[in-house]
């Protein structure tokens, strides 16, 4: 270990930990009894989940007439929530795949939980188009399969069909990436578990991993390949989600700016959710040495960047509406800012454009309580962004006689809360049963017993 090069960059892990101590620190939270905070969190989130299950069951029994949708506003809370949750997932892939390709070693402490967040968020997202169908037991109709109706195939020219393939691929690839990254750590847990069910489960999941260098070499190659495949995938997924809107002829939706605008917004919202979760996890699971102020600072800086792109997109939309000379386009944007949903528009601007500017100050970035509060503001703002895009474009379309408003029902609000319940329940269970931090990757970036500086190369 060279002292001189170690001094150039701050270490990625605080407290000068050794590999054995890393195993101890991270496995510890899985082996003891959960803290009371964990039980409180699980109680709250599973109650929300129960509420959501009740709301969805009611919707399935009665039909989607229980929602506040009408002939003019055909997409409301359901698709808003879908786009919101899919967007949350994108930061997980950014951290696990894109930052891996860029050799950003600080990602090691947060990538496992960010990937878990991606998977749970995509699960929440998938739920909404499913129940929006009204008859979810026929959901398999969206896949092309041999049938006796012709065979009649799905329409591959439809953006909604692209969406099915994009989200399904995203879920499967993220799940594989997450699981493959976890195999060495599951082997560590297997070798620590004394006996019984836990040992059997971890042995089954760790696939007989024994740390052979030949397998490591192949494994690392595959990990790099997966990162390389997941990077264009993540950009394609929200591009395709944005095409659900952009391929329509509705003013406010029919714009070429949507793909980059949606991708940047997705990563922006996802980073805010990563911060929210990490700041809780580091306290509850006692991981202050691993998720340090440096990680929080880096993510705040990424938020400033992506938030800047989002702000740029908001102003470009307005400029183009004016510049196009199209009265319908101009009306939609004036209606957004000054119409009946202007409160939602200005909530969005306040949360997404002004909040990230506070992160320019180092004092604010290093105040973790403040960062936590601001990250929640961004989550709220990004939910409203999707609501504004969907509802304000729809509610006053071409014919004033068909103008209408949209008021969500209690069932829709309960379904949204239920999706948060599902997300946090899954995340808390993950914290409890699987290693929250990638032990094998953390050991590889320690300064302990290495021939050269292991910091940020």
């Amino acid at each position, binding site marked *: 270990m060279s002292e001189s090069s170690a001094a150039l960059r701050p270490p990625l892990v605080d407290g000068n930990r*050794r*590999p*054995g101590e890393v*195993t101890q620190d991270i496995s510890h939270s899985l082996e003891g009894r959960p803290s009371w905070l964990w039980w409180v969190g699980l109680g709250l989130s599973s109650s929300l989940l129960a509420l959501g299950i009740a709301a969805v069951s009611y919707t399935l029994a009665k039909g989607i007439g229980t929602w506040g949708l009408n002939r003019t506003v055909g997409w409301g809370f359901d698709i808003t929530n879908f786009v919101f949750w899919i967007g949350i997932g994108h930061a997980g892939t950014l951290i696990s795949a894109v930052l891996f390709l860029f050799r950003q070693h600080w990602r090691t402490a947060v990538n496992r939980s960010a990937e878990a967040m991606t998977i749970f968020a995509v699960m929440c997202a998938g739920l909404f188009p499913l129940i929006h169908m009204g008859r979810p037991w026929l959901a398999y109709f969206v896949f*092309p399969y041999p049938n006796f109706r*012709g*065979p009649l*195939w799905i*329409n*591959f*020219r439809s953006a909604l*069909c*692209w969406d099915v*393939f*994009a989200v399904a*691929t995203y879920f*499967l*690839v993220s799940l*594989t990436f997450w699981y*493959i990254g976890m*195999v*060495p750590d599951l*082997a*560590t847990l*297997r*070798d*620590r578990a004394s006996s019984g069910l836990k040992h059997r489960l971890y*042995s*089954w999941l*760790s*696939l*007989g*991993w*024994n*740390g*052979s*260098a*030949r*397998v*490591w*070499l*192949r*494994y*690392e*190659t*595959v990990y790099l*390949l*997966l990162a390389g*495949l*997941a990077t264009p*995938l993540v950009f*394609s997924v929200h591009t*395709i989600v944005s095409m659900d809107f952009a391929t329509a002829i509705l003013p406010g939706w029919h714009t070429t700016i949507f793909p980059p605008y949606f991708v940047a917004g997705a990563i922006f919202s996802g980073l805010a959710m990563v911060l929210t979760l990490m700041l809780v996890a580091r306290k509850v699971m006692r991981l202050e040495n691993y998720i340090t102020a440096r990680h929080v600072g880096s993510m705040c800086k990424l938020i400033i960047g992506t938030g800047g792109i989002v702000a740029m997109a908001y102003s470009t939309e307005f400029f183009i509406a004016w510049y196009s000379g199209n009265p319908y386009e101009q009306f939609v944007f004036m209606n957004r800012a000054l119409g009946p949903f202007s409160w939602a528009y200005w909530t969005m601007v306040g949360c997404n454009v002004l909040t990230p500017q506070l992160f320019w100050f180092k004092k604010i970035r290093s105040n973790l309580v403040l960062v936590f509060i601001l990250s929640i503001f961004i989550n709220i703002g990004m939910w409203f962004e999707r609501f504004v895009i969907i509802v304000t474009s729809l509610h006053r379309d071409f014919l004033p006689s068909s103008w209408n408003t949209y008021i969500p029902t209690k069932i829709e609000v309960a379904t949204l809360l239920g999706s948060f319940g599902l997300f946090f329940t899954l995340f808390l269970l993950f914290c409890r049963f699987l290693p929250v931090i990638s032990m*094998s990757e953390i*050991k*590889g970036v320690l300064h*302990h*017993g*290495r*021939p050269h500086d292991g910091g940020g190369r």
Partner: protein
Amino acid sequence: MNRKLTGVFANEREILAVTADCREQGYEIVDVYTPYPVHGIDRAMGLSPSRITFVCFALTLLGATLKLWFQTWTSAVSWPVNIGGKPLHSLPAFVPVTFEAAILCGALGTVLVLLIRSGLFPWSKPRLPAPGVTDDRFVLAIRQTNPDLPPDLAERLLRDHGAIEIREDRGEEES
């Protein structure tokens, strides 16, 4: 002559040095076991880069080709339906799904190949060379097939590089 020795080490620096040295002296490196991927160990062991990248490329191409063919076949051949006057074979509209299928086939296929090639299955029993290899221990397993090497050289090499523990198998049960 078939003599197998296993040395347990405490850190990355030692395992890299001892692996390179043993190989230079003419011992066969059976394998190295580490708790995390040690960079440079492939060079020390004399391993060539994994060829799985070519597998991945082929699978990605396969996924794209099959999906593009399938979309064209379903939309233009099997049951042609006029949708909004669009051409039956509308290639640009087939690009997104083709792309997703390429990624899906490439990613899942490559992982499957990794698991099969490395013998990683849920029912596999882990063969650990020493306890702690998934925690903080680094293990080198070497085999002496050349009878001309001095009998105590291997042990001396391992000890000089800081081995905590050395085990020797002289039995014929080794394959």
